[in-house]
């Protein structure tokens, strides 16, 4: 599939934005600026970006605890996200949600989710809305390999199938649920092999190859937009960091970790591919890298300088009566 240069540059910029965002979150978390739990997406950028390259702001997305990358790919502003992670009033959710609950309805981003398997039922809801209103919005439902053993996923796959909902279910199989390997927790080798149990197409692919992700999701999105129902895509990948910041990662296999970080880095793979085909120049990449770095710096500054929410905000956005 031929991609326009504009799209290639967009892809690179979004991936780089996620990577730079996540690396910076790691630093700020280490400094104690970001409280709570953070789960970094670095290493998996090709999935969110490859898929979101098919979408508009009107399309929906449900996400997971590892949601920063999904947000950025869907177009949520990194500065608002950073402010949210800092717990500031200028954050995407006024500082009330934090890393695990980042959401941006204006971008169709229906929330990261602290509950593994919490998202798929919600995705059926946005899918139902789109279907009933006969818009052609699609919903992307991200979930991890660990989430594939959660009953809610099964219910949602069946529901989406019988109602022919415009949903693309995306399994981000990074090989682990916390410290538990997928080959232990999952009874089948490929999560996408379960698609047949719901009478929908299932594709297992290299999640670090953005072109493979883009192509497969392009087809799935087209199916969804034309009323042909859901698809299950499984993107095999690897996370560069621990499950959360602070994880000693003793369960990782050193050689595999090294291989992924050095040879299978999705951003490197993209660069090498595109450079080899002379589609984008080093200078163009450099310009993007600089812009992204500046954007993230600015975002951190914005987050740092923003005020915390007023304590009265504790009582807003919910019904309180007593």
């Amino acid at each position, binding site marked *: 599939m031929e991609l326009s240069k504009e799209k290639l540059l967009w892809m690179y910029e979004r991936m780089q934005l996620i990577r730079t965002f996540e690396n910076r979150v790691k630093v700020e978390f280490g400094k104690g600026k970001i409280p709570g739990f953070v789960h970094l997406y670095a290493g998996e950028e090709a999935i969110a970006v490859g898929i979101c390259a098919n979408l508009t702001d009107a399309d*929906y997305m*449900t996400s997971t605890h590892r949601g920063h990358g999904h947000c950025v790919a869907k177009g949520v502003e990194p500065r608002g996200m950073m402010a949210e992670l800092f717990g500031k009033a200028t*954050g*995407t*959710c*006024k*500082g*009330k*949600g934090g890393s695990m*609950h980042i*959401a*941006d*309805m*204006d971008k169709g981003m*229906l*929330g990261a*989710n*602290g*509950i593994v398997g*919490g998202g*798929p*039922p*919600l*995705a*059926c*809801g*946005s*899918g*139902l*809305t*789109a279907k*009933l*209103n006969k818009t052609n919005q699609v919903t992307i439902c991200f979930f991890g390999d660990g989430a594939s053993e959660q*009953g*809610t996923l099964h*219910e*949602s796959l*069946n*529901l989406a199938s*019988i109602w022919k909902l415009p949903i693309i279910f995306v399994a981000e199989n990074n090989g682990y649920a916390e410290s538990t390997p997928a080959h232990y927790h999952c009874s089948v080798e490929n999560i996408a092999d379960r698609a047949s149990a719901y009478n929908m197409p299932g594709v297992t692919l290299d999640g670090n190859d953005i072109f493979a992700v883009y192509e497969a999701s392009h087809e799935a999105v087209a199916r969804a937009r034309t009323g042909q129902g859901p698809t299950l895509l499984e993107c095999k990948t690897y996370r560069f960091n621990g499950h959360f910041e602070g994880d000693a990662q003793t369960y990782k296999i050193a050689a595999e970790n090294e291989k992924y970080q050095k040879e299978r880095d999705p951003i490197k793979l993209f660069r090498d591919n595109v450079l080899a085909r002379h589609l984008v120049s080093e200078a163009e990449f450099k310009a993007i890298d600089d812009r992204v770095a500046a954007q993230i710096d600015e975002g951190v500054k914005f987050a740092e300088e923003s005020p915390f929410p007023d304590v009265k905000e504790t009582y*807003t*956005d*919910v*019904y*309180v*009566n*007593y």
Partner: protein
Amino acid sequence: MAERQLNFGQALNEAMRQEMRRDPKVILLGEDVAGGADVDHLHGDEAWGGVLGVTKGLVKEFGRDRIIDTPISESGFIGAAVGAAVTGMRPIAEMMFVGFMGVCFDQLLNQGAKLRYMFGGKAKVPLVIRTICGGGYRAAAQHSQVLYSLFTHIPGLKTVVPATPYDAKGLLISSIRDDDLVIFFEDITLGAMKGPVPEEPYTIPLGKADIKRPGSDVTIVAIGKMVHHALKAADELQKQGKSAEVIDPRTLSPFDEEAVLESVKKTGRLVVVDESHPRCSMAADIAATVADKGFDYLNGPIKTVTAPHTPVPFSPPLEDHYLPNPQKITAAVLSLF
């Protein structure tokens, strides 16, 4: 002209029908809410319309696009209802028996109830979940629970427990028009109960209690079906020279503290009647509120009449013994004099 009489189920059906006519965003989903999905010969009123027939006939008027049968996937379809609400629909989901809520509890506790807050107010969840509750049907431990205390504990959820057909219609219409997630409890043994119900749509505000019987010697706060037991007890008490005021909170969250405090101020005595298990129950909640904010009005202890802290037994004599009744209420009231 005599007032029109409807039973509880008919009142609810009419509320949904009128709201669905008014607002195309209102949809209904649940197990067998139409009934017989994909059965070629079923086109109209013969279809189930929910396990107790409350939604019977709606599919004939609104079609299967808006009256949607679901698989037995409560997390899936309740979560879908939350997701549809967040993206612009106003779903009504039928969750058959409240005892089944356990299978989709996360979608209520952590999704539906919290999204608006966690998203900094950028989402709203205009969803009503209708569910059957209550004992007395000999339906045993899993199918006879009330459980509204659990949902009242959770911020972000509203809980509504009507006691009459009139209240049922007005409260359901308000719930459908509300922008928060409302859990609407329909007592199984009240389903056939008749009462006057105006034909035109009307609303009853959430958070407004109703004085079902005025009185001056004791305040009886009773929830749902318990209202009728309390009224019977009040009759008996009248004979014994005690005037009981019976207050029906109608909605548990939000709760009309003021109405209860006003009444206790007048009567000086409080008995709370609640079919719940006693621990961390609505009965305890109301008692605690008054023990704090109305302490000075009280002439004596606050009594609660609840079910015991046991599952609901199946055998009829045990279930009868388990449930609150007018005699127990009368006894609790008399203990205060």
